[in-house]
């Protein structure tokens, strides 16, 4: 593998508070130098790429991805999921354990590591289960999972309902300093809910998934993190109350964190009533789409707008945005959840929750956070790089400091494109964002010094 010299890009490395035009030299899988010495140190045989006008940043990290392998390879595989990640600009992803079998034994962790070594286009890190079979009844072998290399534990897709069990999981995890991630959903309150409980669920006759179903568990996690000292990460936050609780807890130094997904801070539950209703109400002014022709269309009850937690109200969307702005939420993630076409092409009640997101996350974040002036470009990049790296304890990722892994994403923040089903690298097509005019895109994804994707 030849050294690679990226010339004349705008290098943004929030970890080092760096934002300047500079060259970047990668060699032997590491960052060698950033700045004037990069070109000087580059050997004559180094590959050179002029990335003038582009943004060069640490490789993006998505700590919430469903790769569906083992066991659900009709939806996605390690090969296709990581190809989608590379296209989306992600160099490292964390795969969730709700596979078949569940990632609750060291053997399954090793299997994913082996398969990834052979087939993955980007770095695959593994999250293990909190409880055996994600059943919420007994602890998974957390120590063995840790030894096998998991970077976090979570029952994602499920939520540990038994508070005593969650407390013990947190206490136990402190022994390994392991991050505990939680899909926050109180089953008794949410029951069979499929849509945010509010005006639209009422009007459409869809069973409500109340915001309090998330907020209760966020509150529980805060209390237990405070008691045990364990680090708890609340996944895919959707509700205003969750942000408020998290903000207060973090201000007191409680070791809790949260992540937000683009669909929750771009869309609202009005989308369930169809595009006309969405653009008339909560979608007004979104992304500056002014011409009617530019506004994507979809019908009412479209199952590509069904995910868990659900799209919430405009007030919740605003609260998530505020949480991102004031730093309460320091991580952006996709919750990439591929499903087969035939699984989604059913009645709304019966469709599985979840949408794909690896290929649209960066553009949606740039448009909704930078484009609106809420955050600067370095601030958004931080939530995809040093934010998750710190949470996961990845010392050599999320930064371009010399000696870090040569994972680099080159972004063209100005390029305009439309997300098309035939272009996706994912095996699944369950995205609500097909046909959307987007702005900003990864044009080059480098993993360990090798080009994983290039526009």
């Amino acid at each position, binding site marked *: 593998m030849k050294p690679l010299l990226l010339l004349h890009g705008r290098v943004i490395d929030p970890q080092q508070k760096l934002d300047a035009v500079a060259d970047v030299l990668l060699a032997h899988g590491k960052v060698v130098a950033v700045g004037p010495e990069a070109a000087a140190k580059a050997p004559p045989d180094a590959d050179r790429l002029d990335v003038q006008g582009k943004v060069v940043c640490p490789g993006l990290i998505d700590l919430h991805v469903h790769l569906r392998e083992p066991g659900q390879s009709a939806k996605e595989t390690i090969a296709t999921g990581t190809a989608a990640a590379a296209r989306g600009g992600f160099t490292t992803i964390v795969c969730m354990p709700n596979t078949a079998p569940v990632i609750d034994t060291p053997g399954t962790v090793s299997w994913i590591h082996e398969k990834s070594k052979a087939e993955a286009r980007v770095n695959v890190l593994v999250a293990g289960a909190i409880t055996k079979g994600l059943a919420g009844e007994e602890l998974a072998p957390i120590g063995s999972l840790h030894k096998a290399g998991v970077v976090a534990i979570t029952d994602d897709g499920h939520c540990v309902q038994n508070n005593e069990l969650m407390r013990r999981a947190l206490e136990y995890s402190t022994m390994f300093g392991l991050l505990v991630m939680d899909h926050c959903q109180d089953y008794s309150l949410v029951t069979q809910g499929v849509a945010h409980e509010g005006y639209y669920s009422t*009007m459409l006759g869809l069973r409500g998934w109340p915001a309090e179903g998330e907020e209760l568990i966020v509150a529980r996690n805060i209390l237990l993190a405070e008691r045990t000292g364990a680090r708890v990460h609340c996944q895919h936050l959707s509700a205003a109350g969750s942000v408020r609780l998290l903000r207060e807890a973090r201000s007191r130094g409680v070791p809790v964190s949260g992540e937000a997904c683009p669909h929750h801070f771009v869309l609202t539950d009005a989308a369930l009533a169809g595009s006309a209703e969405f653009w008339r109400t909560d979608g007004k002014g979104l992304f500056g789409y002014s011409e009617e022709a530019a506004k994507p269309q979809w019908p009412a009850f479209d199952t590509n707008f069904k995910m868990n937690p659900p799209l919430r109200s405009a007030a919740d969307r605003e609260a998530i945005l505020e949480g991102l702005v004031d730093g309460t939420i320091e991580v952006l993630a996709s919750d990439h959840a591929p499903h087969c076409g035939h699984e989604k092409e059913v009645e709304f009640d019966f469709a599985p929750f979840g949408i794909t997101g690896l290929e649209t996350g960066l553009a949606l974040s740039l448009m909704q956070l930078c484009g609106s002036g809420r955050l600067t470009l370095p601030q958004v990049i931080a939530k995809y790089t040093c934010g998750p790296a710190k949470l996961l304890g990845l010392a050599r990722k999320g930064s371009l400091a010399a000696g870090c892994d040569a994972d680099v994403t080159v972004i063209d923040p100005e390029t305009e494109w439309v997300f098309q089903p035939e272009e996706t690298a994912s095996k699944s097509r369950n995205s609500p964002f097909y046909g959307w005019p987007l702005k900003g895109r990864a044009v080059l994804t480098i993993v360990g010094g090798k080009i994983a994707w290039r526009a």
Partner: protein
Amino acid sequence: MRWSRKDLLDLQSLSPEEITAILDTAREFKAVGGRAIKKVPPLRGRTVVNLFVEPSTRTRISFELAAVRLSADVINFTAEASSLKKGETLKDTAKNLQALRADFIIIRHSAAGAPHFLARVLDAHVVNAGDGAHEHPTQGLLDVFTMREHKGRIAGLKVTILGDILYSRVARSNIWALQKLGAEVTLCGPPTLVPPIFREMGCRVTANLDDAVADADVVNLLRIQHERQRQTMFPSLGEYTSLFGITRDRLKKMKPDVLIMHPGPINRGVEVESDVADGVHSVILEQVTNGLAVRMAALYLINGAHGGTPEEN
């Protein structure tokens, strides 16, 4: 007006003119139903499939009879006997029916939006015969038809809908149709079944029955749906009846010309006392008769939209 819709999916998306067109057409068909020869030819040669994925007796029979009276051929299809039980998707089932050249699919389904989903994937006409807690458009239309017949108008009427609103597709279709035609809608019941969020749909919401019915021109009672409700919505049927049941005593406090309506089937002694259900204010059986006329009108208009003009038929 010229009817242009391929499907009848909900009343929320209809204009007041479209609703009125169905009601006016239904009036013609009601007259036909009063004749000795009740059958007319507009749907001759057409095939109507009653795709009932959720059990129903009266709505299915009403649609079946409406189609038969219009001279269509009717196939009844119930989920129990179907391949849906074997894991076939609704889409595949419906595509198979279309491959057999069904012209109309009348669907009853437990999932909100199922008719909308079918309408997207089929060329056949789709008629919603009730989708989950979403809408039951022909029920809403027959209720409004009945009110208009008795009161001469809908605009300005005060209509109270009582009972299980949260889970009721009948309530939602009534709310849209009544509001579009200018009526004032009050919803009444315990807050577990009538949450305040319904105010955002333009309704008055109250848990005070006396207040809700005092100046009502129409009281539409909804069935308490035991089979859908978990134990958490209200403590017991007895308590529900004591708080919200319509009794002779309560009827006395209402307007002398109040209409008592109910989509059926009635739980006698629960939401309504037998004497009231069978009394002079009750138009419950007229609703059934009118349902037939409204469904004939709906099928007739939709058929004209796609398969030729009404004149050709």
